[in-house]
């Protein structure tokens, strides 16, 4: 069992000798295509957990877009996830058994100009080969002109393989990520 304890500096207390534990690894600013991949993350052996922070929008002439997450290129039913969903009129839930996806969490080309969806996705114990991986996500879209949702999601991979690649894509679209989209990968030591 692993717990992430992220010590955040308190200005009233002298910084402990533990040192930095949260590092920026890389940022991808999507310039074309509706898919980005962080590859070879299994080489990030200095870190215990990974986190992705993103700001994203799609170009397709539609309103709400869906972010999909696929690990190690696996497209089979090797995932299960449960989500709490908040929308303007209701709270709900959803389960998925294929790659995780979150409906209407990024705006597309026909939604409010200059509006982007955002998200924080965490991959705990990503290099472990003795346990299934747990991914936690907090995603949100507040563009008008379509459904606006936020998702709180827990996802489990049905394999103990270490995570070697993380693919984030816009589900079922022929469009691209819009200019201004970026995905940043962070490593957390443990």
């Amino acid at each position: 069992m692993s717990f992430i304890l992220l010590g955040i500096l308190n200005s009233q207390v002298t910084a402990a000798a533990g040192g930095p534990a949260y590092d920026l690894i890389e940022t991808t600013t999507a310039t074309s295509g509706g898919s980005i991949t962080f590859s070879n993350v299994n080489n990030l052996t200095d870190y215990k957990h990974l986190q992705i922070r993103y700001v994203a929008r799609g170009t397709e002439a539609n309103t709400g877009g869906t972010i999909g997450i696929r690990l190690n290129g696996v497209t089979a039913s090797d995932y299960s996830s449960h989500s709490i969903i908040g929308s303007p009129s209701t709270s709900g839930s959803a389960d998925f058994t294929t790659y995780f996806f979150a409906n209407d969490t990024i705006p597309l080309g026909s939604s409010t100009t200059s509006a982007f969806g955002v998200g924080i996705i965490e991959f705990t114990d990503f290099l472990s080969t003795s346990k299934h991986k747990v991914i936690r996500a907090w995603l949100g879209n507040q563009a008008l002109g379509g459904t606006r949702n936020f998702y709180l999601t827990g996802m489990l991979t049905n394999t103990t393989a270490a995570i070697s690649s993380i693919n984030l894509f816009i589900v079922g679209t022929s469009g691209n990520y819009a200019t201004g989209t970026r995905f940043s990968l962070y490593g957390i030591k443990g």
Partner: protein
Amino acid sequence: MPTPTYDLLASTVLGSNTATVNFTNLGTVAAGYRDLVLVCMARSSGTSSGNEALLLDFNSTGAFDATSSAWDTSSTSSQTSSGSSKIENYIRTSQSSNTTPSFLIFHIFDFAQTNKHKTVLRRYDSSTYSWWGVFRWNQTSAITSINLDVEGTSTDIVAGSTFYLYGIVS
């Protein structure tokens, strides 16, 4: 080369009851950072029942659209707002000498980017409820100030409340 980040940029610990808390001059204070994270523990000095709104705005201008869901011990609910000049976030009052603060966290993405509106993930919790949601500030201007004040004109944010602003590079 990995870059250590998630840095404390500014902090406010109230030594006395205070009407407003402001983080200003962010163009300088947060230069070089991409996202901001504001972490708060706060309570109002009001004596009304339950909760009071802690209002947040950016640059004292613009409008907000928000979607939130709340959970308490018995039910869930959803809320939406559009065109608000401030965002409401509920904190516990000092009714019946309540000393329990509320926890609030705001993840402010791309705060200084001028090619997009600013979208924020927020959460606030107390002993009786949990609110999660997303809101958007409909300005492409960089955020240069974050302002918080309690909605009631005769109430303050109580002494001991804390506000910490962190920066994350990208």
